[in-house]
């Protein structure tokens, strides 16, 4: 597995989180399922690391293992080099932003944010001061006295963030923190989160099923499928050089082309935007134009070649019409051979 990326090569930073052969299984109605299956993972201090995958792929369980909410059946979890596999959450020096925010409904916003300080016995005045500062930094200064129920979804999200950061953790776990927000707010928060991470220099471990979110924010991404990591790389590498069919399809929905179609053996990935569509029959892969979707800046064409459906993206408007005969062209460098996964 190529874990050496530009990020880890520059300086050899401390390893914040390390998972060695971690297994976590659940038993439901007699059947045992391995939610996390022999996962190896190293996350450097200060890294923005995303766990990406569809629901049920093990990414959230992996995060919960790091947070201490689940116990591994076997394997070792290390935080800053020390074995933390058996430590309860309150003994781990990390904090979590929960998917449902998990704000305490019976406390004010200020009490919520000051909670981590209160349980550590920080004097009241200092607690209020630090919690207030934290609230200011997430732009919720005027909301200190409110109850969580009186806030909007986006505001609750910020309170959850402030609450998790108030004790200055070295690692912040985020479990689909933007999942409940609408698109516009989500995009704003993505930018803010990334800026915040850069400013604080904290390790962010971010769970999401949104590949766009993972690609745009992360230093590195681990793609989960069936409890295993399919590929772990920087976003650009992940996009340009997917190693398996699953990664190719899940990240940026590449076309997966069987080799027979182009006179080779194996499976190949080809990004829709790397395909040129020529009108009529020429030398190369030909087919019939099935559908045209105008997307604004781009146009998506669906082409049938043999029994395969191949999608292409081209900028601007297409003058082609449905049912037209077309030929596909691409440069060799964009064609990626995939490992045949089990």
């Amino acid at each position, binding site marked *: 597995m190529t874990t050496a990326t530009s990020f880890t090569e520059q300086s050899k930073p401390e390893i914040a989180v390390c998972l060695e052969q971690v297994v976590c299984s659940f038993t439901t109605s007699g059947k045992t399922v391995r939610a996390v299956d022999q996962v190896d993972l190293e996350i450097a201090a200060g890294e923005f690391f995303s766990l990406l995958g569809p629901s049920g792929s093990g990414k959230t369980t992996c995060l919960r293992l790091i947070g201490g909410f689940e116990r591994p059946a076997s394997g070792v979890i290390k935080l800053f080099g020390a074995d933390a596999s058996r430590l309860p959450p*309150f003994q781990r020096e990390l904090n979590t932003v929960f998917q449902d925010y998990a704000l305490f409904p019976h406390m004010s916003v200020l009490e919520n944010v000051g909670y981590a300080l209160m349980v550590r016995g920080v004097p009241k005045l200092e607690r209020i001061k630090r919690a207030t500062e934290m609230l200011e930094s997430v732009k919720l200064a005027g909301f200190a006295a409110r109850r969580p129920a009186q806030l909007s979804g986006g505001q609750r999200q910020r309170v959850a963030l402030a609450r998790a950061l108030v004790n200055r953790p070295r690692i912040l776990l985020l479990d689909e923190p933007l999942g409940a927000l609408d698109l516009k707010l989500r995009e704003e928060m993505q930018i803010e989160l990334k800026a915040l991470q850069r400013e604080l220099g904290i390790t962010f471990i971010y769970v999401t099923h949104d590949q766009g979110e993972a690609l745009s924010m992360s230093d590195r991404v681990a793609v989960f499928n069936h409890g295993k990591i399919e590929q772990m790389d920087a976003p650009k590498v992940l996009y340009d050089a997917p190693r398996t069919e699953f990664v190719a399809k899940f990240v940026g929905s590449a076309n997966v082309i069987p080799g027979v179609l182009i006179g080779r053996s194996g499976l190949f990935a080809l990004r829709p935007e790397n395909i040129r569509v020529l009108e009529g029959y020429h030398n190369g892969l030909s087919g019939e134009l099935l559908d045209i979707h105008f997307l604004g800046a781009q146009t998506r064409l669906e082409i049938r070649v043999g029994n395969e459906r191949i999608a292409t993206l081209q900028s601007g408007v297409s003058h082609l019409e449905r049912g037209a005969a077309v030929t596909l062209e691409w440069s060799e460098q964009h064609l990626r051979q995939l490992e045949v996964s089990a």
Partner: protein
Amino acid sequence: MIRRASGVLHGRPWLGLLLLLIPPLLWMGIIYMGSLVNLLLYSFYALDDFTGQIKFEPTLATLQQLFTSSSNVDIVQRTFVMSLVVTIACALLAFPIAYFMAFHTKGNSKAFWILLVLLPLWSSYLVRVYAWKLLLAKEGIISWFFDTLGIRFVLDWILTLPIIGGFSLSSSYLGMFLVFVYVWLPYMILPIQASLERVPKSLLQASSDLGAKPNQTFWKVLLPLTVPGIAAGSIFTFSLTLGDYIIPGVIGAPGFFIGQMVYTQQGTAGNIPLAAAFSLVPIVIIGLYLALAKRWGAFDAL
């Protein structure tokens, strides 16, 4: 006909709602609340000393009697203290059981535990109270148990204690307390269990994540969020003990309780105004308790 009726109802949702609400409103409004108000009105009348008949003239004499006669004050005090102690004991016993049911059982095992809690309610309350009289009797199984273990002197020592002691457990306030706790415990367990079930697990995880030790999570997060359940349960146990007249009649020391007083006054003594005055006491106490609970924020998390 039906079509016309549905046409009338369509677009007037309040009409349908009203039709549905009329039977329960009649029941609650007239038969239940009406008779209750009527009963309470009687506490503002008094018995004529000569004829023994009720004089239908508004007076505070009966209510005054409640607070001036020292035997009546004793009865109110005795009942109040017993209700309070029973409620506290029920809450302390019920919480761990409810906690176990809410967090450590699921599916069939949860159903099994709920069944266990409810099972005693399937047999008659009277039968259970009389059964306890035998259990607590001087020759009963509890005495036998102390004898067998060779610690008879412990039981004897307990029975020599002032107030709670007596000739035997079945004729002491301690015995009465045990029976009260036994019969009302399910009414405390179930509301607490329901309120524990409603606490999202993620809140407890968040508390731990933020550095709270388990006991801090309990006092700062879990308990405040289950206070509404404890309040609901305590209203049951408190008001049921305040109004009960069977257990004090069967078990315990001879002093009267409010329920017995109501029973005797409206029956043999024929003094309905005084019975009404006594039945006002639990209502006022529960009302005050609810007001206080709300003031302390017991229902804020609802």
